């Protein structure tokens, strides 16, 4: 899978052999509201791409345009070498799963899964074996005679997935498939869907607003905001190298510091002067520094590396395996930082609110954006 995972130039893209879905210049307005603006995107064959963004960012609209359920105002969609831009939904080749499952309540699980197969006038035996195979695939082999109303949400979503895969579509579209489920079911099912997708090597586009879901499942994540693509990249790239302040803010927790660039790879935050890895900034420019909470080192017992800054622990929030530690830096006009520290470290060092410590902010972890 990772073979196809290549960073894509956002501004321009052209179809290649590996490209399965090619989206170019998609624009969509609802009245005065611009839902999507000039969206370009390539999805490789067999890849799982996640559209991630806050509600109203246009991710679902883009998915529905790919499905032919909405019509773009401009732009092209090429699927598997075929221009489907103007084809009605029924003429395209995809399976779809919705947040609401959309299982037909009056049909049995068997009939739901067979719904698209029956229409293809396949032999009864063929249909039966295909349904059995799919139910097996989603881990519900014995539920054919039940009705959707008799199953849990997670089970229903598995059935919806089986129904969408039944006709072996070239493209699988998942519209917030896990959002209606409870936390445990959600985590379990996202692993299952990912495993299934990799096993079948079906090109998949999923929409979600849950960054954890996106990070855990995607080959690549498309972060969207206000009708545009902010960044496209692997989960690791998106997390560790956010391209824009929005991405940095939206994906994962992050500390943001407003600063003024100084000469010699340093910058000024309030009364403090910090080292940063990025060089060549014009001194005096206002910049923003982003630092992941887990990158902050806390040194409690005097043994601190050179350049560590004095700070006071404001509070410790216990989260189970990790703790969030609020840190007040000594100095004027400096923000409160949040560090993410493993529980053992917190316990071992006896970190507690009121304690004075020293903290290190690794220059290479300080990302300069905007």
């Amino acid at each position: 899978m990772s073979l196809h995972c290549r960073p894509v130039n956002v501004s321009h893209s052209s179809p290649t052999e590996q490209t399965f879905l090619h989206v170019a210049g998609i624009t969509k307005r609802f009245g005065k509201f611009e839902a999507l603006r000039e969206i370009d995107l390539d999805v490789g064959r067999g890849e799982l791409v996640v559209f991630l963004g806050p509600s109203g960012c246009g991710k679902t609209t883009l998915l529905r345009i790919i499905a032919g359920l909405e019509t773009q105002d401009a732009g092209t969609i090429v699927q598997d070498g075929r221009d489907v831009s103007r084809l009605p939904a029924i003429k395209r080749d995809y399976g779809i799963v919705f947040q609401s499952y959309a299982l037909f309540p009056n049909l049995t699980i068997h009939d739901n899964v067979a719904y698209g197969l029956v229409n293809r006038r396949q032999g009864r035996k063929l249909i039966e074996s295909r349904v059995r195979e799919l139910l097996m695939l989603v881990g519900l082999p014995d539920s054919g005679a039940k009705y959707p109303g008799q199953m849990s949400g997670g089970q229903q979503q598995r059935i919806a997935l089986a129904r969408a895969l039944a006709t072996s579509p070239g493209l699988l579209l998942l519209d917030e498939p896990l959002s209606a489920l409870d936390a445990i079911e959600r985590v379990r099912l996202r692993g299952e869907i990912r495993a299934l997708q990799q096993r079948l090597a079906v090109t998949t586009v999923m929409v979600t607003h849950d960054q954890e879901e996106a990070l855990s499942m995607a080959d690549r994540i498309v972060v969207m905001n206000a009708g545009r693509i902010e960044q496209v990249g692997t989960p690791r790239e998106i997390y560790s190298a956010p391209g824009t302040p929005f991405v940095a803010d939206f994906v994962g927790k992050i500390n943001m510091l407003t600063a003024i660039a100084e000469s010699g790879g340093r910058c000024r935050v309030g009364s403090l002067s910090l080292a940063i890895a990025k060089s060549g900034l014009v001194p005096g420019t206002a910049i923003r520094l982003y630092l992941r909470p887990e990158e902050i080192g806390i040194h409690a017992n005097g043994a601190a590396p050179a350049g560590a800054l004095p700070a006071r622990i404001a509070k410790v929030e216990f989260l189970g395996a990790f703790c969030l530690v609020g840190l007040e830096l000594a100095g004027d006009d400096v923000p409160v930082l949040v560090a993410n520290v493993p529980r053992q470290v917190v316990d071992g060092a006896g970190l507690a609110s009121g304690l004075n410590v020293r903290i290190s902010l690794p220059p290479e972890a300080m990302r300069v954006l905007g």
Partner: protein
Amino acid sequence: MPTSASTLPAVPMPARLTLRAHWQDRLAQGLLLASCVALALFLLAPLAMILIKSVQDKDGVFVGLQQFREYLATPALKESIWNTLWVSTSVTLIVVPLAFVYAYALTRSCMRGKGALRVIALTPILAPSLLSAISFIQWFGTQGLLKFMLGGASIYGPIGIIMSAVYATFPHALMIVLTALLLSDGRLYEVAESLRTPTWRKFFTITLPGAKYGLVSAAMVVFSYTVSDFGIPKVIGGNFNILAIDIFKQVIGQQNFNKGAVVGLILLLPVLLAFIVDWSMQGRLHAQFSARAVPYVPKRSPWFDTSMFAYCCIVSLLLLLVLGMAIYTSFIKLWPYDKSFSLRHYTYGLIDAGVISSFFNSLEMALYVALFGTIFIFGVAYLLEKTRGMPLAKSALRLLAAMPMAVPGMVLGLGYILFFNHPDNPLNGMYHTMTILVLATIVHYYTSSHLTAVTALKALDNEFEAVSASLKVPFYKTFFRVTVPVCLPAILDIGRYLFVNAMVTISAVVFLYSPTTQLAAVAILNMDEAGEVGAAAAMATLIVVSSTLVCVAYALLTRFLLTRTQQWRVAHAS
């Protein structure tokens, strides 16, 4: 020829794109347009004819507002406007509180016999409005047992109209208020309870505001019904003039269709106003109940339960006395001189007189209305809610579907006669046929049925159609395999509603029937007009019996469906 163009992806596209229409989309859109045309033809065009006729004289010459001026200049006719308004307002002010307390008892008390009391309260729906008028004459007329209660006043006139209209509109108001009370959130009462709120304060701060829109809606429905109803004042109104009677007198008595059109337009105004008030309230009603409410579960309270039970029993008894008197009248020989049991009103009055055929006409019409009306109304609602595209046609169709509620039956009927009997209308062959009666009745009762269908369809997952398209299953297959079965209870409900109303309708059809298509309710009117009260009561009894049978059949069918074909629903509930 750019043969390869379609396979080359990067062809610049025009600024505005449309999807290539699949034949299935075309089919849906064609049906949608056809429905638009049908409603325009059978609703808008007749109403437009009324507008045109109202500004023309008898010879079709344009005279502007002269007809209106003439009408308003007649003191007697101006009075009928006033009469219509104060009578309708009185009925509204009486019925809504009566229905509210009844509904309150059904939802907020733990009294016994709720099921039976609910059924009894709804019985007036099964009877033509004329039945109550006949019955009140028998009770309170010169020879009536209860005449003394009027203290010398005559039942013929406003008193009779108000009493009969109260009877006829009670179930309509009750159903609306009942729904409003059932929708209110039980959690509000729990919170109030925890804050030690006294009962009366709960009533005024939770119950009443919660039911407010329902009460307004009920008031508007009752008001419109009374304004538009023509059967009751015709039978019991004596010389008390109201607008609905004026139309009848202008059209039938004086053969002046243009004046009739003028009165029709004036009659349209209060009903339209009520409709607009109700419609604007509906929006707020939905906003109020958008969140999921927890149903309220009443607690036992002996004194309250007993008094509520007593109230409901008294109201039910009164309702049954009205129905009972009509049935009794149909079985006695000669009111009031020979009260021995006799079937002569059925045998001689209905069968030998040949009037019984109108009962079968009514049954036939009601069946057609229920069958074709349900198919059309549900189909249109489906096209509106579940197909894509054609936003303009859809807006038009939504408006058209809402309009019939604002059009009194007599106005619609008058429009039909003017439009379909016009010599230049290629459809004038429909005049005097069963078809036109069926169409007028479907249109007349369109709005409620439409709302039932839309509500049922809105409850379905919005993505069924998208899923079907992705599975390459044509939309109509999903319609028949999923949409219809899931909505079956609502569909049956629409059918029953249309049937029962078609059996009792009079105002929409009184101008449209022909002797071969005479209807039972019209026959009642004519028989009463000829003084054949016994036979009229007999016919009313037949209508009540047949509508009751249909309702029982509906109840049994629904239960059967719930236990057999709708297994999934039971599964869901468990």
